[in-house]
C-alpha cells in the first residue's frame, strides 16, 4: 500500500504528456543487468495494523522501570506544552531554513536557542545544535585542534566514557594524541594534569558535574591550559547549570554537552541534541549551522543562516565539519523547555534534583556495608561502594523493576563494587526509600 495520490487515469495523462507508454519506460535508463536481484519484504498494512505492531514492540520492553540510572540520558520532567508546541507541523515538516523569508519561524527560534545556550553556559556564541553529547565533544576537540594547530588532548577520565569513546572514534584516523588522565577518586587529578600538560596540547577536556556526579571547579585547570596555549573544553549538564558555576566563569574556551535533559524524551537514546558554544573570536571555527541577526530591505529585523562559508555545502572538504542535518527540532524542544521553566524555574529544578539526590545519598550510604565513594560535592548523581560486586546487585534489582544505577566496573578498573546512582526530580521520596530498602535486602540475602 503506498500513499501515492494519483489515480491510474491521472497517471496515464501524465505519461501521455511526457510522451512515454508506461512507467517502466521511465526506468529504461537503468540497464537491465543492474536491476534488483531481490526485494523480499512483507506486504504493507494499514496504519491501524502498524500501530498494533508498534504497541507490541512497546510491550516487549519492561514498562515502568524505576530509573536511578543516568550516565548521560536523564529521566526529567517534560512540561506538556513542549510537545504541544514542538508538534506544530509548521516546525516539524519544514526543511532547513535556507530560504529565510519563508522560514523566519525556525530561524528566530534557533537564534533564541543559541541565545539560551549562551545564557546558560555564559559563553558568547553558540551554533544551532550538533547531533549529541558525544559527537559534540568530538567536534569540540577538532575545533581546539584547528584553533591551536596542535594535536595533543588531555582528557579527564571522569568525562562521560560514552562521550569519550565517540571522540576516540572520530579522531582515530587523524594525527591526534589522546592522553587520558585517570581521576583521583571521583575528581580530576590536578597533579596528573600538571605533570602531563605541555606546549603540544591543544586542549584539556573536562566535565562538570563529571561522570561520577562530582561538581568540579575548573578555574585552576583553565589557567593551567591557557598558560600552555591550550584551550579548556568543558562538557556540562544543562540542568545542573541552574545551580553550578558556568563554563565561561571558570575560563572555558569551549562549552559542550548533551541536551537530552532539556525537554527531550529518553526515546532509547535519541533523538536529542548536542550543544557547543565558544567565545566570539572562535566563531569561524564552530562546526555546523549558525543563525545570525540582520535586516531586510525595509530595515526590519530578520534572521538568516550565516557564516555558511564554514560549512560543507560551500567549503566541501575544507569545511569545519561534515555536519549537515543537525537536531533542530530537538534544539527547539530545548528552547521551549528552558522558556517554560524560566530563569527561576531552572534554579528550582536544579535544587530539587540536588535535594533528592542528597536524600538518597544519605539513605544509601547509611546502609550497613555501603559507603559513599564520591568525593567533593555532587549534583544529582553519586557513587557508592557496595560490599559486593555492583553488577550482581543491579541485575537482581532489575528483575524487581528497579534500575538501581550503573555498575562502574565495566568502565573503570578497580571499581567493580562501585555503583553510580542518579536521582532526578522525578523520583519520589518513597521511591528512593524503596531503592534503599531493596539494596539492603539484597545485600542481606546475597549468596555467592
Amino acid at each position, binding site marked *: 500500500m503506498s500513499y501515492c495520490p494519483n489515480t491510474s487515469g491521472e497517471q496515464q495523462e501524465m505519461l501521455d504528456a511526457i510522451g512515454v507508454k508506461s512507467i517502466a519506460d521511465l526506468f529504461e535508463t537503468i540497464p537491465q543487468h543492474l536491476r534488483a536481484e531481490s526485494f523480499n519484504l512483507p506486504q504493507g498494512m494499514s496504519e491501524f495494523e502498524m500501530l498494533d505492531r508498534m504497541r507490541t514492540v512497546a510491550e516487549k520492553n519492561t514498562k515502568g522501570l524505576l530509573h536511578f540510572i543516568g550516565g548521560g540520558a536523564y529521566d526529567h520532567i517534560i512540561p506538556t506544552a513542549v510537545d504541544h508546541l514542538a508538534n506544530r507541523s509548521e516546525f516539524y515538516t519544514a526543511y532547513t531554513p535556507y530560504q529565510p523569508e519563508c522560514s*523566519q519561524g525556525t530561524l528566530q527560534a534557533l537564534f533564541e536557542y543559541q541565545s539560551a545556550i549562551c545564557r546558560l553556559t555564559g559563553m558568547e556564541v553558540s551554533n544551532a545544535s550538533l547531533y549529541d553529547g558525544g559527537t559534540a565533544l568530538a567536534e569540540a576537540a577538532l575545533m581546539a585542534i584547528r584553533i591551536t594547530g596542535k594535536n595533543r588532548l588531555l582528557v579527564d577520565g571522569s568525562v562521560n566514557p560514552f562521550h569519550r569513546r565517540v571522540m576516540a572514534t572520530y579522531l582515530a584516523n587523524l594525527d591526534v594524541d589522546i592522553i587520558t588522565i585517570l581521576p583521583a577518586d571521583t575528581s580530576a587529578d590536578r597533579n596528573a594534569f600538571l605533570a602531563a600538560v605541555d606546549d603540544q596540547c591543544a586542549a584539556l577536556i573536562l566535565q562538570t558535574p563529571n561522570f561520577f556526579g562530582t561538581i568540579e571547579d575548573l578555574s585552576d585547570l583553565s589557567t593551567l591550559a591557557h598558560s600552555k596555549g591550550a584551550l579548556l573544553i568543558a562538557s556540562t549538564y544543562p540542568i545542573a547549570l541552574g545551580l553550578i558555576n558556568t563554563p565561561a566563569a571558570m575560563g572555558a574556551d569551549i562549552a559542550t554537552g548533551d541536551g537530552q535533559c532539556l525537554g527531550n524524551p529518553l526515546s532509547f537514546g535519541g533523538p536529542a541534541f548536542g550543544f557547543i558554544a565558544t567565545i566570539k573570536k572562535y566563531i569561524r571555527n564552530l562546526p555546523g549551522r549558525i543563525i545570525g541577526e*540582520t535586516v531586510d530591505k525595509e530595515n526590519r529585523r530578520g534572521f538568516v543562516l550565516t557564516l555558511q562559508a564554514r560549512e560543507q555545502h560551500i567549503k566541501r572538504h575544507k569545511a569545519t565539519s561534515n555536519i549537515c542535518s543537525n537536531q533542530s527540532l530537538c534544539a527547539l524542544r530545548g528552547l521551549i523547555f528552558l522558556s517554560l521553566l524560566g530563569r527561576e524555574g531552572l534554579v528550582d529544578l536544579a535544587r530539587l534534583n540536588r535535594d533528592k539526590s542528597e536524600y538518597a545519598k544519605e539513605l544509601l550510604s547509611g546502609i550497613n556495608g555501603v559507603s559513599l565513594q564520591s568525593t567533593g560535592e555532587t549534583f544529582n548523581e553519586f557513587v557508592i561502594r557496595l560490599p559486593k560486586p555492583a553488577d550482581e546487585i543491579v541485575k537482581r534489582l532489575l528483575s524487581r523493576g528497579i534500575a538501581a544505577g550503573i555498575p562502574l566496573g565495566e568502565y573503570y578498573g578497580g571499581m567493580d563494587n562501585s555503583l553510580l546512582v542518579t536521582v532526578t526530580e522525578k523520583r519520589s521520596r518513597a521511591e528512593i526509600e524503596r531503592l534503599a530498602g531493596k539494596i539492603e535486602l539484597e545485600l542481606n540475602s546475597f549468596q555467592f
Partner: protein
Amino acid sequence: MQLIYEQSVAGRRGVRLPSSDVPVATPLSASLCRIESAPLPEMSELDIVRHFTRLSRRNFSVDTNFYPLGSCTMKYNVKALETAAALLAPFHPVTPLLPGGEAHAQGCLGMLYDLGKSLAEITGMDEVTTQPLAGAHGEMTGMLIVAAYHKAKGSKKKYVIVPDSSHGTNPASAAMVGYEIITIPTAPYGDMDLELFKAALNDETAAVMMTCPNTLGLFNPHIKEICDLAHEVDALVYYDGANLNAIMGKVRPGDVGFDVIHVNLHKTFGTPHGSGGPGSGPVGVKKELVPFLPAPRIVKTAKGSFAIEFENPQSVGRTANFFGNFGVMAKAWAYILMLGKEGLTEVSEQAVLNANYIMSQLKNDYELPYDQTCMHECVFSASRQLENDVHAIDIAKYLIDKGYHPPTVYFPLIVKEAIMIEPTETESKATLDEFIKVMKEAALMAKTNPELLRQAPVTMPISRLDETKAAREQNVCCPV
C-alpha cells in the same frame, strides 16, 4: 516579532515544578555556584505558547505548502508514523547496557535489528548499522569503515574520489577521516567523466563515493564499470543513498557492486525534516566489512532474542552516545511496515513519474541542460532568464509569494543558475499542475516584468535579507 527575551518580565513564572517531599540539602559551596541565575525568559505559559505558535506560522512547511526542494525529498509522511514513534518515547537507553538489562529492552532492540535487516534487503547489503545520526554522520561512519578495512589489510591509502556533482557532505566526511579528496568533473553527458576518473584512480585510492541517481537526477549507466574499476585497485565504492526515493525495488546498490552505503531515513523513510533535523543515517556494508561496523551491534541470538555485542576488536568504535536516533528509526520501521514491498516500489515509480512530468511541462520555459529521462528529480537552469537579468534566486523568491517553497537553487554547483526540482511521490497531479502554471508565469514575468521577480517576496513578514551584514556583525546571540 519580538524575541522571547524581549518579552521577559522579571519575576514572571511559567510552568510550576512538583513540590518537594525531601529535606532541603545543605547549600552547595559558594565556589561551585553560579553567581547569577541564567537570564532565561521569565514568561507565563500563555505568552510562551503564543510566541512559539506565532513563530510556527512564519514557516513554510510540507503540511502547508508544496515543497519541491531538490535533493531533499520533502515528501509527506503520514501522521500515523508520528503517533507510532511516540509510543516508544519512555524507554531508557542505558537499560540494556546494565547486567541482565537486554531482557528488559527486547522490543527496542528487536525493532532496531529488524530495521537493519529491512534496510539491508532494500539496499542489497549484508548488514546494516543503525547508529549514525544523519546522512553526513553515516558517510563519516562509512569512511571510518573504509579506513579500518584498509588498515586491517595493512594498505596505506590516501585518496577518496568524488564527482563534482556530489553533495558537499561527501568530500567533507572523507576529510573528517583524514583522506585527501580528488574531485572529478561531470562530463557533458551529465555523469562523472569516466576517462578522468580512470586517470585519477590508482593504488592509493581508498574509496570512490558515488551518488546514483546523481544530483542531476540522472542514473549513471556506467555505474557498474566504475565499481569494477575501483575494486581492481582495492578501492571500496561508497553509495550516497541519502535519497533512495528513485530506486526502491528497482536497483540495489549492493547488487551493482557497492561496498558501503548510507541511507537518509529522514528523506525516503517516513520522517519529516524537523526544520533541519533530527535525521538518521544507517550504514549498510558487504560481508567483508561487517567486522568494522560500529560497536555496540545488535545481534539475534540462537534463541531468537536480541543481544548487544560489545566486544568487537576490529570495530571502528562507538559513533553516537547510544543507539542512534531511535525515535527517527521507529518512524522508518513503521513506514516500511505500512508500505511493504509493493508500496515501496510504487513510491519510486510515482516519484519518477512526477519528476518527469514536471520536466516535460517546463522544458519549453526553462533551459534543461541535461535533456534525458530523469529519475526522482530534474535540474533546470535559469540561464534563459538571465538574459533579462533574472536569476534563479529571483524565480525562487517569486514562488514564495505564490505560496510555494522554492526548489533548490544553485545546486548542484555544476549547473549555472540551477533550479533543482523534486516533487516526490506524495504530491497529486493537481498540485503539480498548479505549480507548473506558476513556474510558467514566472518565466513569462522574467520577460515582461523582471523587476517584480527581483523585488519578490513581498507577501512575507520580511523581504530579502542583508546576508553580508549578518556575516559581518555576527550577532548570533541576544545580548543580556
